[in-house]
Every structure is written in C-alpha cells, then in structure tokens.
C-alpha cells in the first residue's frame, strides 16, 4: 500500500520580522533584520543587550487580560499564530476541530519566562506567594494544551523538546502521523519566548551568543568569517498539515508537500556538533531517501546556519559530504540572519520559508554575509534574494543535545 501524501494548507506566524505570513515573507526577501536592542527588560547586567523580539503584540488587547495573564508569552504567541494558520487553511476557528485532528508542537524551553518569574517571587516573598498558575505556564507542553483547548483539538498530541530541532521534529512526526493514517490533519507548531534575563545570561555564559551589542542588526552573520555566535529570537509559527485526500476534499489551496523527514542523534556532545556534522549528514540522507528523491533534486537548502563558529563550519562540511560536487551548485541560505535563532520555533518557521520559497520562486538571502569564511564556501545567497524556479527544498535543524531534524518539501 502506498503511503498517504501529506500537504501544507495553512500557515501562521508571529516572529521578530512581522506578525503575519505576507509581511514576514516580504521582510525576508527584502533582507530586513528583525533584531534590535532588547526592550522587554533592563539588560545592564547582561553581556548581551539585543535579540529578535516580537513587536507590536499586546496580549491583553489580543485575547483579553483574564486569558492573557494565564498564559506564558510562548503560549500567547502560539495561539496567535494558530489563529492565522487555521483561517489560512479555510478552517472555522469558532468550531471545535475534534478527534480527527492532532496537534504536535515543538519548543526548546517552554515557559522559561514564567519559570524565571516564579523563582524571583519565591526568593523575594516565599513559597506561599508563588503564582498558582506557574506550573501551567512553565511546563513545555503548555502551548500544546492551550492551543488544543482554544480550538478543540481532540486527536493525539505531542510536545517535542529537542532544543533547536524541536519544531522540525514536530513537522516530521506530524507527517508520520498523517501518513500512517492516525489522523487526517495535524496542527503543527513551534514556539519560543526565551528573550528573558536569565536565559540570555545563561546562553551568554556558554559563549553561544553574539556580543555585537553596538550593531544588533548586523550581529547575526551566518557563514561569515566574523560571525561570533547566534542571536536569540522569539516567536511562533504554525502549519496546518493534512492528507492530500483531505485537502482535495475540502477544496483548499496547497502550499506544497511534506515529502521527506530524516532524524538522527549525534550521541557525541551536549552542545558541540559531531566533527564534520556526522549526525546531520545521515539525517539529510534519510530525508532525501524518505522523499524518494536523489541529491540531484534539491534546489534550495534553508540551512540551520546559526552564526556560531561551530555550526556553520560543520553544516557546510555535512552538506558537502551529502551532495558531493553538487553541493557547490545548490542555493543555500540562513534566514536566521534576519530572525535570529527562534530555538524550538525555528524548524516550523523555516519549514514555512521552505514552502513559500517553492510557491513564490524566490530564495531569501543570508544577510550580513560580507566576508565569507573559507570553510563556508558554498552558495549561501549573500544579502540579496534570488528569483529561481524551485521544485524541492530542504530544511535543516540541529539542536543542543545532538538532535538533528531534516525535512524535504516538494512542489507537487
């Protein structure tokens, strides 16, 4: 029996660039940066004072104060992005979606901002003053549960916490759920809101973050010789995935097909990628095989491209290992140069970019790439978008813990 084909029929996003899909896309192809000096809190004690924050989002105004105060920001953003995605997929957001719809969300650190707040309260005022909503805000599956409640999603639910690969794994696992006939539709998302004092401080402690405080918009420079770390970003992106049959029956537009998924684990080091990106290599190979394609078919790779010295060098090596001489011909870019690193929200965001690139025939650039590293010598689409007919795209996501999730998307 041939496997059911899986399509994407709805997209929604709120991220450092914009608070909807069309504006996000136009920012991406214009090479704009969503990174700026942090406004949410005082950064004077921190070595890093900038990030990719979501802008112009007032949760009290959007969902009412009584609801907003119950949710961590990561969950508020999840609901916001889900609303856009469901409407985009022509689904009625006032009706319960029911038991034939599943939900899979990825997040790296869940409601970390609420964790930080609860600890502060505990230290300052004692156990009896801890917010009784703290647990329901900080648990990593909070977005999954809250989105399910909001839209009556009664099918299976999963929350995936494979750090920066989390929502790439979410897309992949949702594909498997639909392919295997467990449900016809899955609301798939990634979310993160880790632009918080302790979290920025802790990532800075392991020297993972860029410290280019003077030029925030130019700080994230994947594959550039002068790159000095990633830039924290926040946001949520949601995809409505369903069986091709379900989409055709509903008569909705199809963005593209989720054709292949490869997942591996480095089993090497908790933060550093395996030498030469060994785990990433196998994940890419498996995703291509799962899509019944060959390396010749891939037109564009949305790289993980974090702008850390280690990732970009090893990802480059891994792409060369997988594609051989063809590696030098493929258009590649890192949209993290514009959004910052959305951590657990990155895979879903970059899946969105990967299908939009197919639909619009445009490859968004890697901005701030002015001085290429000789160890990163592939076609990384510096600074200016490229128009090109694209049929197949690949999206790479690699996370702390050694988790690798690679997806392949097809036009038809």
């Amino acid at each position, binding site marked *: 029996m041939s496997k059911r084909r899986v399509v994407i029929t709805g997209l929604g996003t709120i991220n450092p660039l914009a608070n909807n899909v069309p504006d996000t896309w136009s920012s991406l192809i214009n090479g704009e940066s969503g990174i700026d000096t942090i406004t949410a809190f005082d950064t004077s004690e921190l070595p890093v004072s900038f990030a990719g924050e979501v802008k112009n989002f007032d949760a009290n105004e959007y969902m009412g*104060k*009584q*609801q*907003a*105060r119950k949710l961590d920001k990561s969950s508020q953003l999840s609901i916001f992005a889900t609303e856009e995605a469901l409407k985009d997929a022509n689904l009625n957001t006032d009706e319960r979606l029911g038991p034939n719809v599943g939900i899979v969300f990825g997040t790296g650190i869940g409601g970390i901002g609420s964790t930080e707040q609860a600890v502060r309260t505990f230290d300052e005022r004692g156990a009896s003053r801890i917010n*009784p909503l703290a647990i*329901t805000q900080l648990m990593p599956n909070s977005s999954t549960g809250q989105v399910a409640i909001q839209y009556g999603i009664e099918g299976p639910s999963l929350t995936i916490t494979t750090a920066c690969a989390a929502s790439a794994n979410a897309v992949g696992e949702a594909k498997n759920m639909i392919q295997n006939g467990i449900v016809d539709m899955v609301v798939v998302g990634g979310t993160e809101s880790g632009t918080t004092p302790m979290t920025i401080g802790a990532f800075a402690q392991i020297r993972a973050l860029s410290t280019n405080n003077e030029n925030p918009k130019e700080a994230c420079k994947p594959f550039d010789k002068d790159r000095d770390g990633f830039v924290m970003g926040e946001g949520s992106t949601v995809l409505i995935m369903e069986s091709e049959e379900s989409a055709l029956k509903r008569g909705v537009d199809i963005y593209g097909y989720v054709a292949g998924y490869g997942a591996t684990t480095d089993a090497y080091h908790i933060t550093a990628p395996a030498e030469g990106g060994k785990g990433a290599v196998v994940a890419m190979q498996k995703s291509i095989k799962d899509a019944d394609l060959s390396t010749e078919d891939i037109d564009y790779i949305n790289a993980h491209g974090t702008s850390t010295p280690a990732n970009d060098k090893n990802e480059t090596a891994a792409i060369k290992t997988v594609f051989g001489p063809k590696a030098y011909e493929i258009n590649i870019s890192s949209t993290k140069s514009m959004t910052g690193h959305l951590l657990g929200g990155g895979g879903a965001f970059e899946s969105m970019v990967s299908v939009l690139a197919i639909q619009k025939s445009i490859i968004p650039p890697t901005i701030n790439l002015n001085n290429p590293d000789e160890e990163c010598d592939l076609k990384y689409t510096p600074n200016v978008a490229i128009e090109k007919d694209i049929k197949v795209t690949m999206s790479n996501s690699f996370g702390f813990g050694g988790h690798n999730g690679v997806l392949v998307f097809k036009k038809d």
Partner: protein
Amino acid sequence: MEDLLLKLRGIVVEVNEVFEKVKKLFVDELGIEADKVTMEAKLEEDLDIDSLGIVEVVMAFEDEFEIEIDDEELTDVGTVGQAVNLLHSKL
C-alpha cells in the same frame, strides 16, 4: 435600638467597602470585566474563575487585607457575596 441601627449601618458600610476592594482586585488583578462583578455573581460560572483561579483570588485577598485564609474556610464560598462576607468576618 438606635445604637443597634447605627451598628448595622456601620456594618453595611464596611461590607460595601470590602465589596469595592474585592471588585477592584477582580478587575485590576484578574482582568475580569467590572460590570460582571456583583455580590450575586458566581465565581466559577459567571466570572470564569476555575480551581487554579481561586488560589490566585485567595492570594490577592491575603495581600490586600493582610489576613490569612485557610482552605477549609473556602468550602462554602461560591459567590462574590460569600467571599465578601468571609473577608468582612475576618477583618
């Protein structure tokens, strides 16, 4: 008799004061719409305060009125009015 009336009037004033404080807490702290908060309003059905919300309400009361409320004292509290009376009795 007049003493008693004066005393009763005093209690009514105090109860009203407690109600106004409670209402302000519900509106400012919990984000509940002001016109929903009446003495008769049921906490769960009318104000959408669930079991987690009750804990928040109690904490807010404790901070505002500088009192302590035991869980057992809440058994019979289902409306705003009952909450106001409980608070009033503890002041």
